[in-house]
């Protein structure tokens, strides 16, 4: 419980927060947070959505400059005035939201803000590209560093962003949910790199909702609840259950995320949507899939296996090069996502910024998908707010009201808003890409409960995820994708996590 406890030897810790509080417009986000990071340790940070993890770390990284309390780096009290100050003090942070620049090249993103120069003072392109290639290769990426960032899948972008901070020479490295878009092999390579950096004496903060990962990589773990630190202990003393109960403040909750599942595919249910030998001309080849009313079809695969493309093709976002998509027996030819929506298809993409308007209030974020149902021509803000409020209550979105700006919500709560958008009018087909990414245990349960309720109401649901637990907990049948083709299908019987992993 004593986060102040020092290593004993009299050497001041690398970083120390004591009694740090930060509020937004009078509402406390974190209260009297104590936190100690020692040199040469990886420090796990866990807590429910909105618990204050990101806020505390943003104080350290100089993003929030207006806080109460004290921060010491290497024993010296500091007060940063900007993220730049923090950077200069050797603190680097990878934020929860991807903050790569899509129009720049991979190499430029790796060296963002600190390009090596030639003797003439011009940017040394050859060196940038060569160095970038070497750095990202240590995270296992074999891509051309001159490629445009925006053209790459989210997982790869996340790795590039990580390499920007990991190899920046920062002594204190904060990673806010760095693995949310990574496949298991990528996570493993990241961990190898983290261990190497730790051995060089850096301190690393690792925020994640994947508690197994946290236990595996961390030397110590701090748990946040409602803006306060509730415990800070060596990881060896902790178990997953112990972490969960400190996070939620009561005994472990009943449901555990699936390690195995009993599939219940029922061929007598009517097929609502069907992909017939679909290909996108790049990655996807010959993918066939049937979505049935009242069933959840899970598509599992590592990042980059084609699930992202499959979801977009089904929503009319990317054109098909081969095969057809049928809705209730009729071949579809989409002209736009508006077409797909009109026909009763709803889609929640894996990356929330793709779906959300950060500078707009929550209610506008939710109502955008249903404005025409409220009134064909005019806006009825009160009706919009009322609808938003019911979703806020249903999904237990942690907010100060319907008019709060979306960007002010915690990451997991933003994800809930993205889902809420489609829940007012039941769609025929609901396509969910990584629906539980970035959510804490409790929120995952809420979302899983809601998805199951929708299924029971007869919606045909397609869940695409690279988290086996999510797929196992939700799916009635499972298709495993590998490199754009269907590797295996499981329709009934008991299936284990190992089955999925080995099929992918």
């Amino acid at each position: 419980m004593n986060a102040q406890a020092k290593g004993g030897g009299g050497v001041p810790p690398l970083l120390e927060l004591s009694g740090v509080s930060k509020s937004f417009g009078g509402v406390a986000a974190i209260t009297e947070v104590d936190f100690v990071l020692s040199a040469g340790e990886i420090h796990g940070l866990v807590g429910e959505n909105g618990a204050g993890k990101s806020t505390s770390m943003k104080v350290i990284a100089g993003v929030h400059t207006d806080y109460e309390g004290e921060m010491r780096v290497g024993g010296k009290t500091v007060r940063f005035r900007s993220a730049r100050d923090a950077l200069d003090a050797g603190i680097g942070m990878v934020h929860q939201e991807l903050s790569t620049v899509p129009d720049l090249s991979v190499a430029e993103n790796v060296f963002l803000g600190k390009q090596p120069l030639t003797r003439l003072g011009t940017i040394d392109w050859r060196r940038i590209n060569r160095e970038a290639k070497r750095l990202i290769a240590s995270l296992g990426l074999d891509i051309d560093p001159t490629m445009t960032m925006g053209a790459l899948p989210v997982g790869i972008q996340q790795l590039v962003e990580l390499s920007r901070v990991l190899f920046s020479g920062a002594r204190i490295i904060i990673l806010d949910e760095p693995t949310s878009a990574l496949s298991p092999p990528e996570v493993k390579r990241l961990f190898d790199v983290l261990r190497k950096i730790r051995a060089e004496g850096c301190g690393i903060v690792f925020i994640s909702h994947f508690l197994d990962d946290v236990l595996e990589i961390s030397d110590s773990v701090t748990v946040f609840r409602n803006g306060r630190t509730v415990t800070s202990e060596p990881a060896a003393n902790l178990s997953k259950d112990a972490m969960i109960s400190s996070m939620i403040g009561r005994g472990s909750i009943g449901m555990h995320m699936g390690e195995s599942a009993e599939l219940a595919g029922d061929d007598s249910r009517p097929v609502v949507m069907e992909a017939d030998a679909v290909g996108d001309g790049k990655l996807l080849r010959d993918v066939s899939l049937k979505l049935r009313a009242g069933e959840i079809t899970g598509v599992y695969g590592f990042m980059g296996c084609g699930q992202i493309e499959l979801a977009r093709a089904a929503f009319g976002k990317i054109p098909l090069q081969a095969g057809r998509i049928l809705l209730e027996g009729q071949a579809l030819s989409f002209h736009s996502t508006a077409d797909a929506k009109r026909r009763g298809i709803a889609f929640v993409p894996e990356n929330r910024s793709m779906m959300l308007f950060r500078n707009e209030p929550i209610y506008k974020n939710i109502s955008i998908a249903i404005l025409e149902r409220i009134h064909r021509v005019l806006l009825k803000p009160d009706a919009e707010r009322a609808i938003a409020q019911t979703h806020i209550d249903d999904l237990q979105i942690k907010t100060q009201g319907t008019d709060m700006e979306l960007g002010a919500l915690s990451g997991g709560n933003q994800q809930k808003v993205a889902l809420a958008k489609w829940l007012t009018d039941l769609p025929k087909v609901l396509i969910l890409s990584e629906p539980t990414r970035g959510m804490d245990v409790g929120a995952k349960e809420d979302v899983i409960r809601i998805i199951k309720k929708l299924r029971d109401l007869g919606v045909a649901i397609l869940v695409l995820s690279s988290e086996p637990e999510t797929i196992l907990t939700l799916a009635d049948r499972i298709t495993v994708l590998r490199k754009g083709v269907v590797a295996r299908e499981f329709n009934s019987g008991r299936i284990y996590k190992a089955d999925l992993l080995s099929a992918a």
Partner: protein
Amino acid sequence: MQDEEAGKAGGLKAVLTGQLRNIAPVFTLLVLLIFFSAASPSFLTADNFMNILSQVSITAIIAVGLTFVILTAEIDLSVAAIANAVGISLAYFTLQPEYVNIANLPLPGVIAIVLTLATAVAFGMVTAFGVTYIGIPSFIMTLAMMQIANGVSALLVRGQIAYNYPDLITTLGTESVFGVRWTIIVAVLFLAGGHFVLKYTRYGRYIYMTGGNREAAEYSGVNVKLIIGSVLVIGAVCSGIAGMLAVAYFGSAQQNQFDTYLLDAIAAVVVGGTSLFGGRGGIGNTIVGLLVLGVLNNGLDHIQIDSFLKILIRGLILLSALVINVYAQRLREKS
């Protein structure tokens, strides 16, 4: 994050920075009003006030369409050229005096007006097609359209000047009702209509959301191509109507007579605080921007000043508005 960083100061600073794009233009307007009133006795009179309104009325109509376009994070550089071409088309469809030696195709007034409007729509459709269907950035596409519209103007007038327009347009362009010029009334109607559409209709919401985050709008099932295409057509139609009224207002239709309107219209929208990055601002901002511009142009006439210096001052004011615009955007993005 600065938006939220007010903390102990009680949130006032937060409100101010958050509203920077709305407050700065109003503040500029007040400063200009006070300055010119003090500097020249002839400035602060009812007559002069009407003068200012009438001077900005044509720009206002163009600026309404441009506000729509800029809110979706696109730009239309062809507005003035289209106004010119459409104004000249109107003359082309109207019988001209003997001594005006241009090809023309005289038609009854109403038909002439309808055909001229159709010309404006056609210009807008071409732009919309290029931007949404082919995927040419609007900055480039409308630059090309500017040339094309100028080409149409040149071909129709061939260096001549036309003087006659349908009666309805002549009335609207030159006469007053209860002492208020029709152009002012039309401009006010356009501003009011634009405001209503943007703030109170579903279409308006889609415009803001498309500008705020195009990808998210698309994933929410908004037909963003339709939205962008339509605002470009609206932009062209507003310019066209402004062009028709303007040729009557000027009393002549000729090549290159709208050259200052492109900069004025863009300046009005941006000085008013509508974000060049889309999704923020609106007609309210544009009205303030128009008044700033109107007061500035008019006021500089009242305080004997080198007319070349005038141009420089306008440039500086525009530059500072741009700086505020981009700065306000950056503050938002940090939050």
